């Protein structure tokens, strides 16, 4: 009943549920309490107008109309629910039939359902009402059957969605029959939206039923529902308008009660399915912003200076105190696991964090301090000198507009170019990102481009003028290795030929190490190490070193198990005392758990701890050197910063870090907060 609690927490939910409780309460209680009164014939009071004795007046037999309206709740609701039940049952059968019957028969059923959906519901309803004859039962089936196609369509869509999930495939491989897969895996997973739809459906059934009764096709005398009462009251609407309006008001209230309850539940499910604020709250407002030549002519070579950057969301701080400088033409890599705060860092620099997010600290771009409420001038500076490239190039382009147009628009808006000049520039930029036959390609729509080509076009959009800074957030994650290489080569060549500074955000340490000069390693929103790419083999933070060991390369020792970082990155909402990495770190001790290390310059290259376990370092370093094909060169020097109490201390041997011992005492690890397995220190 967790869901119920959350329904109650919203104002809409409270209102809807209150109405629903009133309606259902009336349906249950009214006939007991007022049944007699509603049936009492009073010949002295025929067709009385509203009075203190009869608030809504009386009917042609002198029966109290308010009592009758209240008593009618039960029949109205019961009939509406019965019709809904018919709709839902039929809908479920028709909708899940394709999953049971297999491909060919399934398509036939789907086609029939699709045709039925196209008929107006009321038409179907009247048609069935004629077939089943006038009366309650006939009307229930008429309305139920008329509503079934809609439910069938919904059910079919939902079933088809669940059917594509791998667990359904797994159940089939395991030998489950179609029926058992349907009952065990598919139906439970479509229950929630079906319940919502049924609740809303009940509301519309109630309206339709009242309509039918009002037309005289539904409930017949002596039974009465709201529609029937409205029908009887209509004759005297000029004399006693309340006689028709009172049941009408009840119809509206009951209809709203069902509909709003459905809406309230749906809203809660939607909140869950659409993801957290991280996914929904920070949608960039200007994908692929761009560039001008004016920005570069500054003597100051520092393009970007970030000081103590933080990103706050209510209750969460996903980025904590990031500082770095970036020079013209320099490439900086930001590395970390998903959830480390890399993407938010990129968005924060571009001032694209949207409320309720708050950016703290200073971002100085080309000498201007950027502010989240920056005016027109800042917008222009960002629009012309900073470019962003996102992971998914398809969603960054408008699907219905030509690629060339979309590129040209940037220059038309930000640089005031004419349509013709901007188009020329777009074609030129497409050529610059090595898209063959750019004149023809510019005329095409995004879907006619392959993934790699779209990403290149996206970069081309970023280059419409000449940006000073290019922020690329996982630009190649969605691409194949060979295409990935092309895109990264392109970024390299742009950087060198146009002196563009680059921030490359990626989860892949090897890739970043190869393409960037400097690397910032992020963990749980913090910078744990800041080092030059050359210094990767002598990285000092255990996290950086384990990350390098954990990823197999073509030089990985096949006889050794891969290094494992047990556990998972802490959620940004959790307050951490001490080092954020401590729970997963093989070197962690009491200091690490109580006191947070600051990001400090690495002592000195010669200060490497040649302690009694010094040999380990050498072995490890050699292995890393081999991995990076650096063998033969002089030992790289770490001149960056690191945040660790045990920087550069030797890690336990890889074999000890591995999870090969299957029998762990169950009591030592909690099932939920420790992922994977425990390190044997």
């Amino acid at each position: 009943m967790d869901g119920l609690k959350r329904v109650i927490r919203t104002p809409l939910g409270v209102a809807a549920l209150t109405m629903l409780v009133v309606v259902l309460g009336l349906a249950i209680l009214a006939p007991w309490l007022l049944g007699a009164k509603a049936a009492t014939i009073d010949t002295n009071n025929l067709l009385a107008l509203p009075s203190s004795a009869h608030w809504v007046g009386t009917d042609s037999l002198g029966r109290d109309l308010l009592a009758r309206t209240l008593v009618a709740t039960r029949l109205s609701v019961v009939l509406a629910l019965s019709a809904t039940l018919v709709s839902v049952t039929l809908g479920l059968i028709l909708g899940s039939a394709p999953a049971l019957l297999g491909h060919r028969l399934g398509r036939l059923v789907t086609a029939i359902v699709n045709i039925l959906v196209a008929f107006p519901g009321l038409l179907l309803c009247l048609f069935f009402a004629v077939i089943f004859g006038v009366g309650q039962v006939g009307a229930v089936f008429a309305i139920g059957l008329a509503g079934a196609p809609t439910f069938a369509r919904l059910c079919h869509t939902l079933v088809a969605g669940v059917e594509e999930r791998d667990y359904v495939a797994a159940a089939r491989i395991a030998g489950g029959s179609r029926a058992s897969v349907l009952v065990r895996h598919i139906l439970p997973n479509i229950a929630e939206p079906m319940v919502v739809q049924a609740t809303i459906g009940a509301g519309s059934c109630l309206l339709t039923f009242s309509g039918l009764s009002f037309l005289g096709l539904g409930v017949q005398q002596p039974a009465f529902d709201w529609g029937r009462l409205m029908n009887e009251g209509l004759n005297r609407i000029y004399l006693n308008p309340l006689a028709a309006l009172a049941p009408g008001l009840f119809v509206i209230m009951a209809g709203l009660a069902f509909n709003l309850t459905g809406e309230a539940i749906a809203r809660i499910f939607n909140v869950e399915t659409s993801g957290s604020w991280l996914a929904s709250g920070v949608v960039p407002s200007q994908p692929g912003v761009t560039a001008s030549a004016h920005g570069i002519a500054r003597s100051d070579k520092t393009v970007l200076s970030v000081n103590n950057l933080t990103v706050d969301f209510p209750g969460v701080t996903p980025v904590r105190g990031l500082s770095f400088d970036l020079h013209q033409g320099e490439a900086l890599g930001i590395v970390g696991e998903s959830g480390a705060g890399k993407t938010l860092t990129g968005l924060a620099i571009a001032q694209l964090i949207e409320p309720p997010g708050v950016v703290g600290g200073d971002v100085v771009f080309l000498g201007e301090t950027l502010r989240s409420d920056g005016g027109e001038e800042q917008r222009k500076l960002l629009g012309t000198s900073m470019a962003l490239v996102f992971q998914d190039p398809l969603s960054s382009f408008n699907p219905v507009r030509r690629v060339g147009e979309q590129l040209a628009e940037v220059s038309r808006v930000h640089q005031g170019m004419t349509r013709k000049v901007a188009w020329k520039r777009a074609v030129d930029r497409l050529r610059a990102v090595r898209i063959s036959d750019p004149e023809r390609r510019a005329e095409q729509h995004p879907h006619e481009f392959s993934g790699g080509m779209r990403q290149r076009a996206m970069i081309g959009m970023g280059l419409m003028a000449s940006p000073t800074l290019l922020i690329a957030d996982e630009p190649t994650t969605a691409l194949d290795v060979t295409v990935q290489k092309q895109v990264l080569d392109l970024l390299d060549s742009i950087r060198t030929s146009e002196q563009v500074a680059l921030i490359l955000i990626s989860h892949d340490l090897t890739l970043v190490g190869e393409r960037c000069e400097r690397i910032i390693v992020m963990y749980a929103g913090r910078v744990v190490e800041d080092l030059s790419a050359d210094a990767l083999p002598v990285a000092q933070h255990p996290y950086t070193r384990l990350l390098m060991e954990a990823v197999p390369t073509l030089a990985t020792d096949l006889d050794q198990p891969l290094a494992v970082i047990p556990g998972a990155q802490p959620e940004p909402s959790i307050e951490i005392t001490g080092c954020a990495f401590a729970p997963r770190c093989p070197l962690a001790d009491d200091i690490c758990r109580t006191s947070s290390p600051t990001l400090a310059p690495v002592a000195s290259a010669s200060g490497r701890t040649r302690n009694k376990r010094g040999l380990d370092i050498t072995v490890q370093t050699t292995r890393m050197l081999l991995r990076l094909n650096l063998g033969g060169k002089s030992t790289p020097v770490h001149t960056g910063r690191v945040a660790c109490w045990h920087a550069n201390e030797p890690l336990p041997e890889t074999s000890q870090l591995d999870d090969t011992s299957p029998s762990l005492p169950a009591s030592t690890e909690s099932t939920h907060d420790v992922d994977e397995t425990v390190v044997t220190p």
Partner: protein
Amino acid sequence: MSRLTFENVTVRFGALTAVNDVSLDVPDGMVVGLVGESGSGKTTLARAGVGLTPMQVGRVLLDGVPIPKRGSAGRVQMVFQDPYSSLDPRMRVGDAIAEALPTPIARADRDDHIAHLLDLVNLNPAIGLDYPARLSGGQRQRVAIARALAAQPAVLIADEITSALDVSIQGSILNLIRRLQTELGLTMLFVSHNLAVVRYVAQRMAVMRDGIIVEEGPTAEILEHPHDPYTKELLAAIPGSHLPPKT
């Protein structure tokens, strides 16, 4: 013995030929890596191997015998790429694993069995009572492997099982695959786009492109002396395979 053989398999989706006359042998007790870019047909071939995708031409043999369309439940098992899609959110982990057990068994035995399987993939057996929502990606992937093993398969097909995982987790899954292979002598078709990963787990490998296998042989040999130009291109594209001059 358990040996999986694809014999002249062709799979078409409308006008598109996803797999074109592919023959591939997965010898007993061996891990065969299948690499190629997305769209090369490797996942389609894997799915055809477990009967999830119908073949237009060709057949899949288990120990020389064609796998019947029905009644072969569980002899060839599959682990999927996306750990967030491969477990039923409405089913407890233990029940999901139990469902794959080849024959229904008594409750007490069943629980022992599940505990053993969870232990085998380095998970706390208590996790069996949880719903997948409480599990991390790495844990889910382990459960998926345990479920596949529950069916006591002759052959396991792993389709990009580390691609959706964070790098820090990927290593532990690869270690697990290697350990299971050594301990249980599993026969496995390991599909991946990552050559370094395939190199780490597979003794033999096949390179697929545009629906056909362009190169096949012992992993070490192919990586050292690739013949096909496409294999060479793949090798050159791996990050870390070279360091460009820094500016």
